[in-house]
């Protein structure tokens, strides 16, 4: 039976999920159950607002997440290169500088169009 380290990860995850659901279920059963009107409504402060909270939000949040994906791919390829830094030598350094240079152009484009300037 090949013992792969991922059995540890699987067992640890299952154990942790079990323990923490146990704690939250314990809290549900131990706590008292007093229902009243104030606990029914959502937390309000200031002007009472309509029930659901879905309203339009600035596009900046999507832009941050989208740019995060693209730069995360860059970080992953950098880790791959960093692992073989010694074997790849100068050839690897030039290669990665080319890779980062092109993405630096993208980053400068972000700064230039002020895509991430937050007003809200």
């Amino acid at each position, binding site marked *: *039976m*090949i013992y*792969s*380290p*991922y*059995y540890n*990860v*699987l067992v640890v995850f299952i154990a942790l999920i079990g323990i923490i659901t146990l704690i939250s279920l314990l809290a549900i059963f131990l706590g008292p159950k007093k229902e009243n009107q104030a606990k029914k409504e959502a937390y309000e402060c200031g002007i009472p607002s309509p029930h659901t909270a*879905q309203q339009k*939000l600035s*596009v900046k*949040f*999507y*832009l941050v*997440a*989208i*740019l*995060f*994906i*693209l730069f*995360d*791919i*860059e970080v*992953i*390829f950098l880790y*791959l*290169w960093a*692992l*073989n830094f010694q*074997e*790849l030598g100068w*050839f*690897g350094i030039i*290669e990665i500088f*080319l*890779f*980062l240079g*092109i*993405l630096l*152009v*993208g980053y400068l*484009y*972000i700064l230039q*169009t002020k*895509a991430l300037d937050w007003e809200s």
Partner: protein
Amino acid sequence: MIMTVTLTILCLLLILCFVTTSIIPTPVGACASLIGGFLLLSFIYGFLGAHFAAVIQIIVYAGAIMVVFVFVVMLLNVPTQDLPKVKISLADILSILLSIPVLILVSIKILNWQAPMIDSQNVEMKDIARKMFIDYLWPFELISFLLLTALVAAITVAHKNKGSRYMLKEGSDHGR
């Protein structure tokens, strides 16, 4: 032997997760079960010996791409999908009846197939990266161009004041 049992269980759970993402009406439920599917997929990569791919799967797929899906689903209040009432016709039953034996035959063919043994020592994480930077130099450099174009495209499309010159006025119903 235990490895095949764990892999079959993980694969069955993975199929279950992916089927729920395609069936479930609520959008956040679909994204949640897809994220669960990606976690199971990263475990399968781990058991298959692809250590780096297992971690990358969580960081890139479950941790970055699905975050944008969850943001979009949460904030654009995507309506709960009123799935079309599927009328099971004769053609549907026939197609299902025919597809299952094909699947069984293909899987038997795969299980009996003997892979030509090229070299026995399994793949180390380091020589993946070395092979990538030497043999696959060109695709690696083109990936940065792909990322650059995606970056510029995403900004011009999603950016409010500069990109969307074609914004339609509220009233016009081009969408019909």
